[in-house]
């Protein structure tokens, strides 16, 4: 038998990976940010239609008939419950799990760095991420661009005011007739155009923050105070890699519950299984989440950039094909 037992990463890469992770822990220790560890399994999960959770069954004392548990796609809900309990600034380095994702930049389980800063707005948090990036990657300071400007620069169409028909016409013109002709969701077309045409043009020389995503792609971010068409959500791109996603966090429990319910309606219309809404998270929000910003950063991708590796398999001990 010639079983593929060997690691997918070189041992030297694992050494460098460990150094980077130690460097990240030192970065937060110096700033007095507390390291926490929250559950990988939870009774509830994320409702986002584009995230697929792994589900397993717990059987044991108190749960004779079994209780479904979800593997977390990110530690966001649990960390926000800690924030609501008054823990102050926190970070976590943990495994996150996303079903249906595997490829050059994806492994169904991956290592996430997530941190929260009470009292920071999105801009202040971007500055801190930039500082970490420069320390780990020795890169130049990041540039910042609004989603709207980045989109217009490349595609000469305003993504916020464009109609569905205009987006369809542009997608067809760029060769995506099959996707565009029957599409009724503006966000799908925006994501298609952004991924395929804008992303390859940004963050090549230095990291690039894209901020003020359309409100329809707000996820768990606050809407902008002066312009509710955009959300206080940002993403970090560097050398064709989507590295981090951050929010000035939505603290309104009613609006959050409403967004979850909307997600589940959308899931139903797409023939997807609805996901149990995290009532403990909603309860934490209504008891009062301090105004804060948070970000999730893919550590494997960060290591890929630091070591100049082309695939995620080369920076993790065993990728899914060898797990």
């Amino acid at each position, binding site marked *: 038998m010639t079983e593929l037992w060997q690691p997918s990463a070189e041992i030297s890469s694992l050494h460098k990976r460990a150094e980077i992770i130690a460097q990240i822990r030192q970065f937060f220790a110096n700033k007095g940010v507390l390291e926490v560890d929250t559950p990988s399994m939870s009774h509830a999960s994320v409702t*986002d239609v*584009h995230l697929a959770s792994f589900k397993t069954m717990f059987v044991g004392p108190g749960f004779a008939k079994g209780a479904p548990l979800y593997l977390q796609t990110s530690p966001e809900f649990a960390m926000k419950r800690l924030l609501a309990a008054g823990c102050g600034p926190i970070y976590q380095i943990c495994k996150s799990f996303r079903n*249906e*994702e*595997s*490829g*050059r*930049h*994806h492994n169904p389980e991956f290592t996430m760095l997530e941190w929260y800063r009470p009292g920071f707005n999105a801009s202040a948090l971007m500055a801190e991420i930039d500082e970490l990036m420069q320390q780990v990657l020795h890169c130049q300071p990041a540039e910042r661009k609004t989603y709207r400007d980045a989109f217009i620069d490349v595609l000469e169409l305003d993504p916020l005011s464009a109609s569905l028909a205009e987006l369809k016409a542009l997608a067809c013109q760029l*060769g*995506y007739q*099959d*996707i565009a002709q029957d599409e009724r969701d503006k*966000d*799908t077309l925006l*994501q*298609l155009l*952004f*991924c*395929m045409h804008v992303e390859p043009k940004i963050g090549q020389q230095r990291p690039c923050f894209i901020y003020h995503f359309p409100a329809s*792609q707000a*996820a768990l971010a606050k809407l902008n105070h002066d312009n509710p068409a955009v959300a206080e959500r940002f*993403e970090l791109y560097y050398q064709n890699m*989507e590295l981090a*996603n951050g929010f000035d966090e939505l603290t309104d429990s009613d609006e959050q519950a409403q967004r979850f319910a909307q997600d589940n309606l959308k899931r139903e219309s797409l023939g997807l299984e609805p996901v149990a809404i995290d009532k403990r998270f909603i309860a934490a929000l209504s008891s009062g989440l301090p105004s804060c910003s948070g970000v*999730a950063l893919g550590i494997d991708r960060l290591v890929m950039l630091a070591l100049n590796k082309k695939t995620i398999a080369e920076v993790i001990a065993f990728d899914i094909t060898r797990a």
Partner: protein
Amino acid sequence: MANYSTNEFKGGLKFMMDGEPCSILENEVVKPGKGQAFNRVKVRKLISGKVLEKTFKSGETVEGADVMDHDLDYLYTDGEFWHFMNNETFEQLAADEKAVGDAVKWLVENNTCTLTLWNGSPISVTPPNFVELEITDTDPGLKGDTAGTGGKPATLTTGAVVRVPLFVQIGEIVKVDTRTGEYVGRVQK
């Protein structure tokens, strides 16, 4: 034929696109952290041979193409069709000019070729990687020049023209790489 979802995409998968069978060369998933995933694939159209890129929304399905490769021995041509035979079943198949394409210049009797069949009919013929053919015409090289700087053109029995070293003469048999059309060496008769 079965349908395939984008999750089944991988190199070599055959499916129908614009009414033509295609084969996947590369498949890459593009998935934003928040948002719709897409599959960006590079495909070869199996009839026209064109290579192109195409993007699918992940989760979509495509119609599979009934495309199979068979190893058959080349027999002869009647001018209109090229006839091949399965060495085990002795079943014969005829490929037209369009299916044979450029392979025509590498067809040697009794050589085993790979025929790609779509719904049972040949759509392309792939000759063996190496064939041996006799030179029917070439300029007599200068005596003593064996370095073969640039070589010279030589016509083979099938009509193919390849560059050979200057010392190679009419009547000699040469081995040629059919994938690149390059001369590999002389063959002892």
